[in-house]
């Protein structure tokens, strides 16, 4: 009964559904986004940037409120799922029209885009410290401990694509800076091999050929007289069309990797979703569409798809056993290394020493890029063993 059909709802009910513009209910249960976000809201200035959904929801509600309608727990409404659906419009004259709501959303998005490009500039980690100056003790301690290993960061826009964008930017930036033709050749070959694999799981070639060509073109410019440089990479990753095309390819590779190894991924996916959902449906709904947030499943798949080891550093409130105010460990920053299966197997005993190529900082609902401090000979052994 929560559908917003005109003419068969009381004003209050119809109004609630205006607020309920959010994800379907299972979208909320397992993306790392919306509902887990409040956790980190204290003292986190980037909340407004990365949490487009909440911003949006709030502002839509306030439009409704402004015209005098009651808004009762709009997001809670979505839980009672009744069959049938409809355009989300009620009949009240005083309600904002869909046009008004969408115009408002667009202006919020535009304002956000101005505040935060798809990828930002390199900032010292002290910027992060500054951000949490009023924040919790745990966060500040963790940042201090982060500074032992990382010197700087680069923020990305919180539009749901932040993991893929952080990954690709960091990966390519390192290739460009090191002019690492060996790794470039490896990854170009790897991406080319994906063509057949994408087709095998059902992607039509026409849906990925352009995006694949864009990515390979950029990689192939390395080692030429006009190689991609960091400034150009920044421009490309900020471009309204190129940047999403690159992400689109990564999403398809991730989806194909999950579907190719569905026996492996199925239990994880079942664990994440309340409803029964097939691996294919999961990919259609939560991997391939732009803006769907990334979870462990996505990262495991991508690291394997491209054979690129990734380190995710978690900046959250989780504290070790030492939280009770004891010892230094309470400030330890957890990280997780995503190591491609082939690398961890072939490196056998040395598996633990597979060096991540890409470092990202995870704060609940959002990923940014981290830059490790140069490793000196003296402490390289320490780092390798962590």
């Amino acid at each position, binding site marked *: 009964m929560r559908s917003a059909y005109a*003419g068969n709802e009381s004003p209050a009910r119809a109004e609630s559904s205006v607020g309920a*513009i959010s994800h379907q209910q299972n*979208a909320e249960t397992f993306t790392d986004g919306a509902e887990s976000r409040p956790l980190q809201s204290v003292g986190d200035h980037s909340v407004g940037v990365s949490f487009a959904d909440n911003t949006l929801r709030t502002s839509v509600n306030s439009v409704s409120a402004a015209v005098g309608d009651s808004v009762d727990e709009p997001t809670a409404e979505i839980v009672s799922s009744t*069959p049938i*659906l409809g355009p*989300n419009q009620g009949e009240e004259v005083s309600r904002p029209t869909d046009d008004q709501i969408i115009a408002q959303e667009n202006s919020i998005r535009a304002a956000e885009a101005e505040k935060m490009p798809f990828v930002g500039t390199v900032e010292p980690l002290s910027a992060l410290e500054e951000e949490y100056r009023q924040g919790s003790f745990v966060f500040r301690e963790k940042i201090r401990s982060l500074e032992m290993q990382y010197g700087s960061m680069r923020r990305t826009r919180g539009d749901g694509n932040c993991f893929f964008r952080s990954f690709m930017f960091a990966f390519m930036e390192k290739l460009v800076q090191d002019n690492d033709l060996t790794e470039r050749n490896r990854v170009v070959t790897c991406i080319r091999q994906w063509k057949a694999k994408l087709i095998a799981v059902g*992607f039509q070639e026409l849906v990925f050929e352009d995006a694949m060509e864009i990515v390979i073109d950029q990689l192939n410019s390395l080692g030429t007289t006009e190689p991609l440089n960091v400034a150009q990479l920044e421009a490309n990753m900020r471009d*309204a069309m190129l940047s999403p095309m690159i992400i*689109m390819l990564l999403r398809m590779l991730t989806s194909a990797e999950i579907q190719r190894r569905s026996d492996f991924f199925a239990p994880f996916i079942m664990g994440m979703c309340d409803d029964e959902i097939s691996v294919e449906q999961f990919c259609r709904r939560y991997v391939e*569409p732009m803006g769907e947030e990334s979870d462990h499943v996505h990262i495991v798949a991508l690291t394997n798809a491209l054979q690129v080891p990734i380190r995710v550093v978690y900046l959250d409130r989780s504290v070790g056993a030492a939280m009770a105010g004891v010892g230094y460990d309470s400030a330890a920053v957890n990280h997780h290394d995503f190591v491609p299966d082939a690398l961890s197997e072939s490196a056998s005993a040395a598996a633990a020493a597979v060096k991540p190529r890409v470092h990202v900082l995870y704060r609940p609902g959002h990923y940014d890029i981290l830059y490790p401090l140069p490793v000196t000979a003296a402490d390289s052994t320490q780092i390798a063993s962590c």
Partner: protein
Amino acid sequence: MGTRSPSQIAMRRIQSELADWLLDDRRPEGCQLESFEPLMSWVVVIEGPDAAPGMPKLYNGERFRLRVNFSDRYPLDPPEVYFIPPSPVHPHIYSNGHICLDILYDGDNGGWSPALTLGKVAISLRSMLASNTELKRPPGDQEYCARTCGRSPKQTRWEFEDDTV
């Protein structure tokens, strides 16, 4: 690398999809391309699917025309898709041709992805017709059509909850 303007990417992609539609064996079953002039705006004809055994014959022999407008940001943005009235009578299709189907829209609850094609959209629409059991309009059809007169369905905020039809 050559930079590509948004419309170049969109045009290439639309042309690739068009090539498929022009080949009999690659076109979705029960669908024809009536017009693709200009290239960004097509008309597709969808034949009413045969009823499954034991199901009521709702659309047998009927033909419906679908307007498809691609944007400069295709395939990142979904195409605008609606039936040119008279639209099929269906609980998710309004008389003005607007269609409540998640893959036609992006954003928070939309299901569009660049991995989809117009061919896949047409197949979904046809299967939406095939699985229907009752000739009726969505509740509030008249009011909705009056309110959205002359506007794009992409300007409507949709909710998608019914997986059955």
